[in-house]
C-alpha cells in the first residue's frame, strides 16, 4: 500500500502535549480510496472513498451490517483491506498506531485494574497524566475504583479518558454511546464535543443515532452497499439543538437515505432489505 500524497496537513513538530499549537492543527488527515473488504464470500466494502480533513468531525451512519465498524477496524489496523489505500496522516494504518485511538461500544476496561490504572495503560503507566485525563472527563475522584463498581456511563468516561490520555490525533469512535440511556447519552455527547473542540483531533464517529450524528459532526456520511451513499455537510453553529428547523431537515434527509426511501412513506412499513450489494446493483 503506497501512502497517498495528500495535501500535507499542518502538523506540530514537537511531540504532544503541544499546548501552544492551535487545537485544530492537531488533527490528522484521513483518507480511504477505492477500499474493498470481504469476509470470505461476503463483500462488505467495495470501492469506498472517504476523506476527513485534519480536525474534522465525521459521523458514519448506515444500516446494521453495512460495514461501519469495518471501516474503523481497517483504519485502526485491526483488519487489512483487500484493495485500495487507506492513509492516516499520509501513512498506512497499523495496529498500535500512536496517532489513532479507538473507543468501542463496550468500554473494554481491564476489570482487574483500577480506573486510573486502565487509563495509565495507554501512557506506559504514567499515573499523573492518567489522573489529569480522568479529571477531564469528570471522574477525578473515581480513579481508585474497580471498573466493576462504575456505571455504564462512568465506564465509557474512563474509556474516553484512556483514549485521550496519549493525545491521539485521530479518534475512532465505534458507537461509544450505543449502550447508554438517553440522558447519559446526551451528557456524553456534550463531553465528546467539548474534548474534540479542546483537543482538535480528527474524529470518526460510527453511530446508529442520526440525531447524534447531526448534533456532533461537521459531515454526516451514509454507508450503503459498501460505499458512501450520501455525504452531507452540517453547517449549523455549535452547540446544536434538535429544536432548530434545519437540524430537523438534515436529520430527515439522512434518515431517509439510511432507510432507502426517498419519497415513499409507505415503504417505511416494509421489512428493510438486508444491507447488501443487491440493493445497489
Amino acid at each position: 500500500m503506497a501512502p497517498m500524497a495528500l495535501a500535507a496537513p499542518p502538523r506540530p513538530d514537537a511531540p504532544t502535549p503541544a499546548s501552544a499549537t492551535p487545537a485544530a492543527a492537531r488533527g490528522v488527515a484521513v483518507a480511504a480510496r477505492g477500499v474493498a473488504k470481504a469476509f470470505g464470500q461476503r463483500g462488505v466494502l467495495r470501492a469506498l472513498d472517504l476523506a476527513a480533513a485534519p480536525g474534522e468531525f465525521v459521523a458514519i451512519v448506515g444500516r446494521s451490517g453495512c460495514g461501519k465498524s469495518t471501516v474503523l477496524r481497517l483504519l485502526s489496523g485491526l483488519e487489512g483491506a483487500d484493495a485500495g489505500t487507506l492513509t492516516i496522516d499520509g501513512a498506512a494504518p497499523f495496529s498500535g498506531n500512536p496517532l489513532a485511538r479507538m473507543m468501542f461500544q463496550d468500554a473494554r476496561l481491564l476489570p482487574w485494574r483500577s480506573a486510573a490504572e486502565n487509563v495509565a495503560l495507554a501512557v506506559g503507566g504514567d499515573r499523573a497524566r492518567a489522573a489529569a485525563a480522568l479529571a477531564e472527563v469528570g471522574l477525578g475522584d473515581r480513579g481508585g475504583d474497580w471498573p466493576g463498581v462504575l456505571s455504564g456511563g462512568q465506564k465509557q468516561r474512563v474509556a474516553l479518558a484512556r483514549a485521550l490520555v496519549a493525545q491521539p490525533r485521530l479518534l475512532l469512535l465505534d458507537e461509544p454511546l450505543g449502550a447508554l440511556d438517553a440522558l447519559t447519552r446526551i451528557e456524553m455527547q456534550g463531553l465528546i464535543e467539548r474534548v474534540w473542540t479542546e483537543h482538535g483531533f480528527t474524529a470518526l464517529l460510527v453511530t446508529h443515532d442520526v440525531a447524534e450524528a447531526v448534533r456532533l459532526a461537521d459531515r454526516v456520511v451514509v454507508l450503503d452497499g459498501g460505499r458512501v451513499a450520501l455525504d452531507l455537510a452540517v453547517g449549523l453553529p455549535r452547540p446544536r439543538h434538535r429544536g432548530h428547523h434545519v437540524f430537523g431537515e438534515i436529520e430527515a434527509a439522512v434518515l431517509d437515505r439510511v432507510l432507502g426511501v426517498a419519497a415513499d412513506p409507505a415503504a417505511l412499513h416494509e421489512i428493510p432489505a438486508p444491507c447488501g450489494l443487491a440493493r445497489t446493483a
Partner: protein
Amino acid sequence: MATLRLSPSPARPTDPAATLVPWLVPALVLLLWQVLAANEIIPPRMLPAPLAVGQAAAEMAAEGKLVPHVLASAQRALLGFAIGGGLGFLLGLANGSFAWSGRLLDSSMQMLRTIPHLALIPLVILWFGIGETARVFLVALGVLFPVYLNTYHGVRTVDAGLLEMARNYGLSRWQTFRQVILPGALPSILVGVRYALGIMWLTLIVAETIAASSGIGKVTMDAREFLQTDVLVFGILLYAGLGKLADVAAKGLEKRLLAWHPSYVRAR
C-alpha cells in the same frame, strides 16, 4: 449465614452470635458421639469417643511422633503439587497462547487425562519401586491435569475485546500477556488449583497406604495393625484438617488475587 457469602453484598455479618451458628450442628454431633461412645452404645473398638481420640493425639504429640509425620506428608504433597501443578500451568499457558504448541500438544494431553492416575500405581511401583519418588510422582500426575485444563481454558477464553483493545493501544506482547491474558485467565486457573489440592490429598492418602516409612499414612497403617482405633481416627482427622487448611489457603489466595472480581468487590 453461609448463603450470604454467595451474594456480592458488602454487608457481612459482624454479630459474633451469627458467626457461631454454623458451628452449632457439628458441636451437637460431637457431643452426641461422646455420650454414645462413653456409654459404650457405640463399641470403642469400632469408633472411639472424641475425647479418647484427643487423648491419643496428645500422647502422640508428647512422644514427638506427630510433627515429623505430618511434615513428611505435607512435604510430599507440596513437592508433588509444585512439580505437577507447575508443569500443568506452563503447558496450559503455552498451549493456550501459541497456536502451534496447542495443536501439537493439546489433543495428547486430552487423551492422557482420561487415564485415572491411580490406576497407574502398579506400573509406578514397577518403575520407581515403593520409595518416595513413586509417591511424589503420583501426586504430581494427579494435579497436573486439573491445573493444565483450567489454565488452558482460562487463557483460551480471555475476552477477545480486551485483546483487541490491547492491540489498538499498542501494548507489547509481554504487556498483553502480563496485563490482559494472565489476569483474565486467573479465575479459571484458581479453580484448577483448588480442584488439584483436593486431588493432591486424595492421591497422597492412597500412595501412603501402599508403603511408607513416615507420614500420616504410616501412622494409620500401624494403628490398624495394632487395632488402635483412636489413633486411626486421629490420622483420618489429620488428613481432613490438612485438606481443609489447603482449601482455606486457596480461598485466601483467591480473595487476594481476585479482589477486583464482582463477587469480591467492595467499594474501595
